[in-house]
Every structure is written in structure tokens, then in C-alpha cells.
């Protein structure tokens, strides 16, 4: 598709109207660069430039207003000394781990079940996937109501005769973060199901038939042949889910608001509150940089493994 190998037709045309054709060739040479350049400049300024700006802020004493005098690692030391930050990090670990694991298992299970030539597959798929169209704020609002300790699911079970049943995780500082897992899995597992189902549909049927002829049972076939062949899908899913987990903000805000107290804080909420409501710009910037580094630390190895496994075929 390079310009040096212009086909004979173009050359003939160029002979007919040399001036117009050469003008067009010149335009075709520069237009693509010209057209792409605003986006590139935008990206350089608003992505790379802004990251550098945030990094700089994280090395200053900025509080309510940005200041640009070098203060070294002061903010990072303050961050690592901040108990609330470590609560947020621990919560991210609990939430991230459980959310990724549960979503992965539920999604894969649903995909395998749906792959059994099910009647009404389309309708079921639509039901599993609709939460993905909702805002995390809507999901949080709905689950906050359902998990309401006085009037929510607890009351339903009490009315059904389980008088001693209590379910007050939403207001229990030790359990609040698990409610975020419940709502998060509800929202995202349908999406993971769709990804796995697409992968399953790509598996060659004849391999499965051959294994069946050899007398392998269906669960064995899935465990030994089908699921291992979904390796690239696993990588994509892990990539997406860890990304969602680390950035999670809306869902926690709507469901628990980081509470009770600060018990279900996550780094994204920590960043938002210190940077925008508590006037601690430097500390907020430092926590944002830590989030960026976490994403890089998780995504880069995953992407490396993914491309390596893709190359192997």
C-alpha cells in the first residue's frame, strides 16, 4: 500500500493530467499525517503531559492550591504513613481478588452451560448481560436497597419464617466490602460469560466429537481440551477485570460511600476525597500515581504473557 508501488493505472492517469495527479499524490502523502496529528497532540498533552503534571504535583507540598516547589518524597511518605490509605489498599486486595475470582468462575460456568445447545439461549444471554448496560451508580442504588438491613432481603427471609436470619453486611464495618463484591459480580459476570461463549464457539467441534468417540465424558472434555484452549480469553478477561477492580469508584460510592466510616474505602475514593474535598492535592496526586503504578504492574506482565502465548499459537 506504499506510494512507490503505484499501479500502472495511476501512472497512465498521471500522464493525462500531470499537474492534478501530482498535486493529489502530494496531498495523499501528507493528509494522513495531518489528519492524525490533532489526536496525537491531544494524547501527548492530555495523557502523557497530564501524567507528568500529576507526577510533579506528587513531589510538591501542594495542599489546597497547586504549588510547584520540589518537596521530594514527602507526600509518598505521608501516604505510606496514612492508615486510611492502607485500609483502602487492603480493601482493594479483598475486593479485587474475590471480584475477579467469582466473576471468572460464574462467567465461565454460565458460558459452558449455555454452550449445551440450549433452547431460548438468546433470551437467557440477554438476561445475563443487561446489567452491563447499567451505570454502576444504578447497580449500587439497587443493591443498597436490597441489602438494606431493616427492609431488604433480611426482611423477606424473616417473613418467610427464618426469624433469626440477619444480613447486615452493608452496615458492618468488617463486611461492607463484601457487599461491593456481590454487586460487582452481578454487574460483570454476564460480560465475562459473553467473552467465554464467543471463545467456546470458536473451538473446533470435530475435536470434541473425536474425544467423545474415544469415550471421554463431557466434563472431562471440557476440563482437558476445551477450557485449556480458551487461554487467550482468560488473559483478556483477567486484563479487563483487574482493570475494572483497580479503577472501581462509582460502585463503592453508590453502595457504601466507603463506609461505614472508612471501612470500605478503596484507592479511587481515597484519591477523590483527598484531592477534591479535603484540599490535599499533593497527597491525592501521590495516591493517583500509586494507582497508575499498580495498573502498570498488573497489566504489563499479563500483556506480556498474552502476546507470548499468542505467538506460540
Amino acid at each position, binding site marked *: 500500500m506504499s506510494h512507490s508501488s503505484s499501479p500502472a493505472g495511476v501512472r497512465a492517469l498521471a500522464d493525462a493530467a500531470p499537474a492534478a495527479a501530482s498535486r493529489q499524490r502530494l496531498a495523499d502523502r501528507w493528509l*494522513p499525517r495531518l489528519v492524525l496529528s490533532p489526536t496525537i497532540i491531544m494524547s501527548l498533552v492530555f495523557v502523557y503531559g497530564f501524567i507528568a503534571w500529576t507526577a510533579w504535583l506528587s513531589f510538591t507540598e501542594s495542599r489546597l492550591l*497547586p504549588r510547584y516547589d520540589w518537596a521530594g518524597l514527602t507526600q509518598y511518605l505521608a501516604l505510606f504513613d496514612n492508615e486510611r490509605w492502607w485500609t483502602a489498599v487492603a480493601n482493594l486486595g479483598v475486593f479485587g481478588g474475590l471480584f475477579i475470582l467469582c466473576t471468572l468462575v460464574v462467567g465461565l460456568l454460565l458460558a459452558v452451560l449455555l454452550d449445551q445447545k440450549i433452547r431460548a439461549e438468546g433470551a437467557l444471554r440477554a438476561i445475563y448481560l443487561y*446489567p452491563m448496560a447499567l451505570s454502576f451508580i444504578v447497580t449500587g442504588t439497587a443493591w443498597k436497597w436490597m441489602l438494606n438491613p431493616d427492609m431488604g432481603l433480611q*426482611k423477606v427471609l424473616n417473613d418467610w419464617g427464618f426469624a433469626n436470619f440477619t444480613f447486615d453486611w452493608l452496615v458492618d464495618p468488617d463486611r461492607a466490602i463484601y457487599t461491593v463484591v456481590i454487586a460487582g459480580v452481578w454487574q460483570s459476570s454476564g460480560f465475562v460469560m459473553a467473552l467465554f461463549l464467543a471463545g467456546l464457539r470458536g473451538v473446533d467441534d470435530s475435536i470434541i466429537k473425536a474425544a467423545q468417540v474415544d469415550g471421554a465424558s463431557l466434563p472431562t472434555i471440557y476440563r482437558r481440551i476445551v477450557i485449556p484452549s480458551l487461554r487467550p480469553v482468560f488473559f*483478556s478477561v483477567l486484563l479487563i477485570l483487574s482493570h475494572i477492580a483497580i479503577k472501581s469508584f462509582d460502585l463503592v*460510592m453508590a453502595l457504601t460511600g466507603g463506609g461505614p466510616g472508612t471501612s470500605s474505602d478503596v484507592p479511587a475514593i481515597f484519591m477523590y476525597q483527598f*484531592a477534591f474535598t479535603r484540599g490535599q492535592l499533593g497527597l491525592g496526586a501521590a495516591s493517583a*500515581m500509586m494507582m497508575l503504578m499498580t495498573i502498570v504492574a498488573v497489566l504489563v506482565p499479563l500483556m506480556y504473557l498474552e502476546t507470548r502465548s499468542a505467538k506460540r499459537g
Partner: protein
Amino acid sequence: MANKLSIGRLLVYAALALVALYYLLPLYVMLTTSFKTLDDIRQGNLLSLPHAWDGGAWAKAWASACTGIECGGMKGFFWNSVKMTVPAVLISTMIGAVNGYVVSMWRFKGSDALFTLLLVGCFIPFQVVLLPMAQLLGWLGLANTTAGLVLVHVIYGTAFTTLFFRNFYVTVPDELVKAGRIDGAGFWTIFFRILLPVSGPIFVVCVIWQFTQIWNDFLFGVVFAAGEAQPITVALNNLVNTSTGVKEYNVDMASAIIAALPTLFVYMVAGRYFVRGLTAGAVKG
């Protein structure tokens, strides 16, 4: 054998149906609660149907519920979201289409590297650009405005839209473009006459994806437009977490459904494309 098989299939169906119920439960609860009166909510439980279907909560949610100090319902914020989403979706999609065309059909030296550079924008946690962006919007006089939000969504949406169109255009056969060149068509002619006519599906996918993302966004909304220009997600969160007075769960639920309706509607009429967008977006992570 046949009998055993059918028991297995029965179990599969039972499991699938059970999970479907679990997925539908929040929707059912939201709908029924929104049509109950407060007394009805207190007397019944989460799963009971309304005694009398009452639209009062809906009227209040739309026109007079309090989100903080203001008591104008979701109405104004719904239109804020519309005014933010429509231009942001259209602009970012059009830029993405042209960008995708360049990086797939007009590759030049270094264009692959530039594309990779652009893609990084899909992966960063946006927290890392919030502070500078807030400062910039303040300087431009766009803080707490819908125009400011449109700008932010266009800037950070373009990486995704470019990726969508690029992935689509690399599947278009080269011959189409080569034939155009032989006929003497230039850069724009090829784009408008040859590629745009076959780009329908990817436009739908891209518009749906961007619409869902931007309508549902909360982070940019809460940081850059906390006041009158706040989008509906921010208003909903304020409504639900306002702690003054009696908690009106029916109004909360009606408001949540109002906030969810546009994306749910799109999902219902174009679900097929929605799924395609998700899986296409998945390639990038």
C-alpha cells in the same frame, strides 16, 4: 443412557433458570418498589407486589425530588446528560472513524508506533489526569459546565473509538482501496465514497459503546461538574445519599430507573451490536 442424559439437561436448565432469576431480581425489586407508596413499602417486603400501583414516586423523582439543596427532581439532570452525551458521542465517533482509516489504510513510517502511543490512553486510570484537567477546565472557564464535560469525554474517548474503527478497517479488503486509487480517487474520496458506505455496523457498535460509557460515567461528572451541570449519575448518587428527612426508597428506585432507561433502551433495541462492542472492546482490555 437417554434417561440419564435428560436428567443432566434438566439440571442444566434448572441452573440457568435460577441464575436468570438472580439476575432479574434487582430489576424486579426496583420496578415494584418504584410503584409502591411508602406505607406499602413498610408493610410488605422486598418481593411483595404493590397493593395499588402508584405513580407518585415517579412524578416526584422526575420533577420534585431533592438532590442536595435543589428540589427539581431528575428532569434537569436527565437533559444535562443528554446534552453531554449526544455531542460527545458524535464527535468522538467521527474523529475515531477518520483516525482508524488512517492507521489501517494509510500506514506511514511510524504510524504503528503512534497508534500504540494512542492506545495507552485506554489503559490509564483516569485518576491520574483528574487534577491537571480540573486546573485546565478552570483556566478555560469550563469548570462545572456541560461543554467542559463534552471536551473531557471526547479527549479520553478518542483512543477507544480509533481502536474500534482501526480493528474494523483492517478487515476491509485492500482491493477496494487499491481500485479506488487506480481510478484516481484521493484520501477523502476513498474515505467518503468507498469506506463510509460499508462502515454502518461499526458506526452502530461504536456509537452504542460510547453512548453507554459516557451516559454511565460518574467519575468525570462528579469531579468536573458538581453543580447545576451535573449529569444524572451524579444527581442520582446525591439523591440516594441525601440523609435529610424520611428516606423515600420508592423515589430512589424510580430515579434509578430513569437514569438507566436510555442505556437499557439501547440495549434492548440493539443488543446484538452491544455485545459486539463489548467483545471488540475486550480485545483491547
